[in-house]
C-alpha cells in the first residue's frame, strides 16, 4: 500500500513537470515579443537587445525553461513586467484571498452535499429525492454567471441587503466581511454542491445494488445504518474524486465569480496578467492552479486507497 501511495506521489510530480513544459511552451508561443511590449515606443534595436540580454531572453528556449523551473522550485517566481514588482508579492495577497474564499466554501459545501446526497440515496423515489434531484439538475444546467448576476439583481440592486461588490478592507469586522463575501460564497456553494450531491447519491445507490446490501437488509439492519455503515465506505472512492475536482475548481475556475463580484482573487489576477501580456505572472498563476489540481487529486487517490481494506490490509 505504501508503494501505491508513493507511486501516486511520483506520478503527481511527473504530471507537474509535464504541465510546466506545456505552460512554458504555451506562453512562449503567444504572439508578441516581451521586450517589444515592455519597451513600447522606446524600443530601439539596441535597447531591445540590452533588455533581452538582461532577462536572458536571447538564450535558447530550453535554457530559459530550466532557469524558470529553477526559480519556480525555489519560490522565485520572477518579476512582473507591469510595474516591476516581484510576482510573489503580487500573488501573495491574492492567493490568500482565493484560499480564504475556497476554504469557507469547502467547509460548508462538502459536508452539506454529502449529507444531502446521502439523504437522497436513503429515500430514493420519495419527494425528498425528487426535490433534490430536480434542484441539483437545474443548478448544474444554469451557468454560474447567471446565478451570480441574478443574485446581484435581487439581493443587491432590488433589496439592497448585500453589497454588490466584495472588496474586503483590512479593518472590516468579521460580520462586515461575511456580508461582503455572502454572494460569491452562495454562488460557489451552489455551483460545487450540485455536482457533489448527485455523485454522492449515484455512488451510494450503485453500491446499494450489491448482494452485501441485500444481506444487510435480510439481517434486519435499519436503512440509515445500511447507508452510513455498509454502503458509504464502499462508495468513498468515486465521491472523494468528485470532491477533489470541485475543490480544485474553487481555486482555479472561479474567474467568472471573482470578476462579477470584483473579488481580488488569484483567478482575476491571472486574467489581468493575460490582458497586460504579463507572461511571468500568467505562468506563475497557471502553475499554482495545476499544482492545486495535482495535489488534490493525489489526496483523493490516497483517500480512496486508504478506504479500501483490500489495499490497506494485504492477505
Amino acid at each position: 500500500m505504501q508503494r501505491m501511495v508513493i507511486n501516486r506521489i511520483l506520478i503527481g510530480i511527473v504530471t507537474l513537470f509535464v504541465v510546466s513544459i506545456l505552460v512554458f511552451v504555451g506562453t512562449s508561443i503567444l504572439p508578441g515579443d516581451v521586450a517589444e511590449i515592455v519597451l513600447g515606443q522606446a524600443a530601439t534595436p539596441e535597447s531591445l537587445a540590452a533588455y533581452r540580454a538582461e532577462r536572458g531572453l536571447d538564450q535558447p528556449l530550453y535554457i530559459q525553461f530550466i532557469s524558470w523551473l529553477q526559480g519556480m522550485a525555489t519560490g522565485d517566481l520572477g518579476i512582473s513586467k507591469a510595474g516591476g514588482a516581484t510576482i510573489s508579492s503580487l500573488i501573495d495577497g491574492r492567493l490568500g484571498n482565493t484560499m480564504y474564499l475556497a476554504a469557507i466554501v469547502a467547509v460548508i459545501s462538502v459536508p452539506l452535499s454529502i449529507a444531502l446526497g446521502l439523504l437522497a440515496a436513503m429515500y430514493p423515489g420519495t419527494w425528498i429525492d425528487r426535490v433534490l434531484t430536480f434542484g441539483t439538475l437545474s443548478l448544474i444546467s444554469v451557468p454560474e454567471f447567471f446565478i451570480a448576476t441574478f443574485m446581484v439583481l435581487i439581493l443587491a440592486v432590488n433589496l439592497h441587503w448585500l453589497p454588490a461588490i466584495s472588496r474586503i478592507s483590512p479593518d472590516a469586522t468579521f460580520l462586515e466581511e461575511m456580508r461582503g463575501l455572502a454572494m460569491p460564497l452562495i454562488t460557489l456553494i451552489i455551483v460545487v454542491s450540485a455536482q457533489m450531491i448527485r455523485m454522492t447519491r449515484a455512488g451510494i445507490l450503485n453500491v446499494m445494488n450489491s448482494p452485501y446490501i441485500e444481506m444487510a437488509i435480510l439481517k434486519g439492519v435499519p436503512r440509515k445504518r445500511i447507508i452510513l455503515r455498509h454502503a458509504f465506505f464502499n462508495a468513498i472512492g468515486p465521491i472523494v474524486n468528485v470532491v477533489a475536482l470541485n475543490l480544485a475548481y474553487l481555486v482555479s475556475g472561479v474567474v467568472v465569480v471573482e470578476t462579477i463580484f470584483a473579488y481580488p482573487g488569484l483567478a482575476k489576477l491571472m486574467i489581468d496578467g493575460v490582458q497586460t501580456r504579463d507572461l511571468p505572472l500568467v505562468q506563475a498563476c497557471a502553475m499554482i492552479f495545476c499544482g492545486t489540481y495535482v495535489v488534490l487529486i493525489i489526496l483523493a487517490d490516497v483517500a480512496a486507497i486508504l478506504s479500501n481494506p483490500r489495499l490497506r490490509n494485504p492477505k
Partner: protein
Amino acid sequence: MSELLEVRGLKIEAKKEDGTPIPIVKGVDFVVKAGQVVALIGESGSGKTTISLAALAYTRPGLEFCGGEVCLHGEDILTMPPLGQRNLRGNRVAYLAQSAAATFNPAITIGEQVTESAVLHGVLTQEEANIRAIELYGALELPDPELLGRRYPHQVSGGQLQRLMAAMALIGKPDLLVLDEPTTALDVTTQIEVLKAFKKVINEEGSAAIYVTHDLAVVAQVADHIVVLYSGEVQEQGSVEQIINNPQHPYTKRLMAAVKPKPTVDLASDAVDARHDREHDNVRVENMTAGYGGIIDGKPAITVLRDIDMSVENGHVVGVIGESGCGKSTLARVIAGLLAPAQGSISLDGKILPGNMLSRSRSELQKLQFVYQMADTALNPRQLIGDILGRPLQFYHGITGKENRRRVNELLELVELPIDFAERYQTELSGGQKQRVNLARALAAEPEVLLCDEVTSALDSIVSSNVIKLLSKLRDKTGVSFMFISHDLSTVASFADEIVVLYAGRVVEQGPVAKILAPPFHPYTRLLISSVPELRIGWLEETMGKREMAVGIARGVEITEVGCPFYNRCPMAIEGTCNLDTAPVHEPSSGHLIACHCSLEDIIAVEHETQQILKGFEGIGDKVDINPTGKAAVLTQEHF
C-alpha cells in the same frame, strides 16, 4: 399449537414495464416444523429463491407479494409493519446466500458483520456476541477463532467465508435458517466440508431450516422434507425417503434423471485404447511452466503451472479436472496463446507454436478455438447472432455474402438452434441457447481443437446435460478434438476419453478415463472421487468417517515450490520425502501416469479401503471388477 412456519397460497408477481403482472410464484403451500430441514428444489426460474426470501417477508426489487400468507408461529409476517419485519430478519429468521464472497461487505471486518444482527436486535451485547462468535467459529471448525473476527473478508478463503456466513446467520439463535444454494459455488472437497459443518451446527442448535438447491444429491444428505418446484408451482412434496426413492411426479423423475451420473466407465468406448504416439497428437504441451508477473530466469513472479506434460490426441476429448485455483484455465490460456509460457513448449500437429498468440499465424489461430464459460460476456450484446457467427467465417475463410449466411444457418443447425436465431441478439436467448451460440462461434473457424473452459458450469443440471449431449454429437460429426476443463468430475467422466488431474499447478495423474476412475488412484484423485455427493441418504456421514476424507478435507490447497503439492492433505504422506522432492511418476499401465512418492504397492494396498467407496459407484461396480492387485479386470481383458 401452530407450526414454526406455514406458507399458504403464496403468490408473488413481477410487473412488466406497461404494468401487466407476470406471476412468479403461483400459490405455494408448505410447512416447516420445528427442528426440520425442508428443501426447495427446482431449476433456475422455478421461483425457489423468491419463495425462500418470503420467509423473511422480503422480495427482491421489482417483485411484490399479491396473495397468500406466510405465518411464523401463527403470525402472518407479510402484513407486519416494516419495523416488525425488520426485527424478525436476522433475529428469528436468518438468511445464508449462495455466494459468500459477494455477500460479505468488503469494507467491514468479519467480526463486526457476524455479530451485527445480534447486537442490533438487542439479543446480545457486543461482548457477549464476540464470545458467541468465537464459539461458533470453533464449532464450524474455522482456523484461529480468536483472531478471525479482526480480519477482512478478502483475507480468508471461499470455503471459510461460506462457513462464516453460517456463523453470521446463527449468531442470534434464529428459529429458522434460510439457506440459498449455500454450497453450489464451491469445489467438491470444499462443499463436503461446508455441508458437514452446516449439518452439525443445525443439529446442535436445533433450528429449523429451508434449504434451497438444484442439487438432489446434496438434498439427500441434509433434508427431512422435499418440496419440488417448477415455474412457481409445487409439483410434488414429501419426505426425503419418499421423493428420492419413489418419486411420483414426472417432473421429479426428470430431475432425478438429470442428476449427473456418478463418474462411470463405459467399456464400449474406445477410451481404453491407449495409443500414445506423437503422430496422432493435435496439441502437445511439453515440460511447460507458466505464471503471471515478470519472468526472471525462466521463472514467473507467481508460478501457476509447473512442468506440465500432456497432449490432446486427434479426435479425442481430454478432460482437465481440478479445484478452483489449480491452474486449469491458465493451462487453456497458455495453449491458446493468451499467456506465453515461461518454459517448455506448445506444439500443434508436431509443429512448435510461438508462445504469444500475436506471433501465431492466422491458420494456427484458426486451428485452436476457445469457448468461454460465460456466454453472456463472450458474446457481444449489440451484435446479431448472425454477425457473431459470420465474422469468423469471413476472418478465417474469407466467406462473405450469401455463402456466409448459408454457413451461419448450417452452424445454427449444427448446434440444434432454429435458423431464425441469426436475426436475434444474445440477450433474447436463454443460458443454454447462448452457450450453443458460443460453441457455434468457435466451430465457425473450423478448428482442430476446441478449448472449452467450464462451459457447463453456469448452467442448470438439465440444460447442462443437454449441452454435453450436443458436444458428444459435435465430436462425432466434426471430428474436432476437445480440451474440456471442468471442476466437476461427473461431467468430465461422462464425456472425456482421457483425464488430466491437476493439483496446485501440477499434473498428479493422467490417463484414459477408465484408468483414472479405477484403482490405482493418486491420493488426490481418490479424495476428489470420494467427495462427489451421491444421491443416497446417509452418504455424507459414511464418507466423512473415512480416513483420507478427514485429512484431505481439513486442510486447504498450498502452492509449494518443492515436493509434492498434495503433501499437507495426503493421508499417505511421507515426511522428509514428499515435502522435499518432486514425486516420481509411476506408469501402472500404458498411458496411465501417477505422480506419487508412495510405491505402487502402497497405493494399491490402500485400495482395499477404497473398494468401499467404489461400492457407491454402481456404474463402476457393475462394469469394472476390482481384484486385490488393484488392476481392473478390464485391463486384463484388454491386454491378454
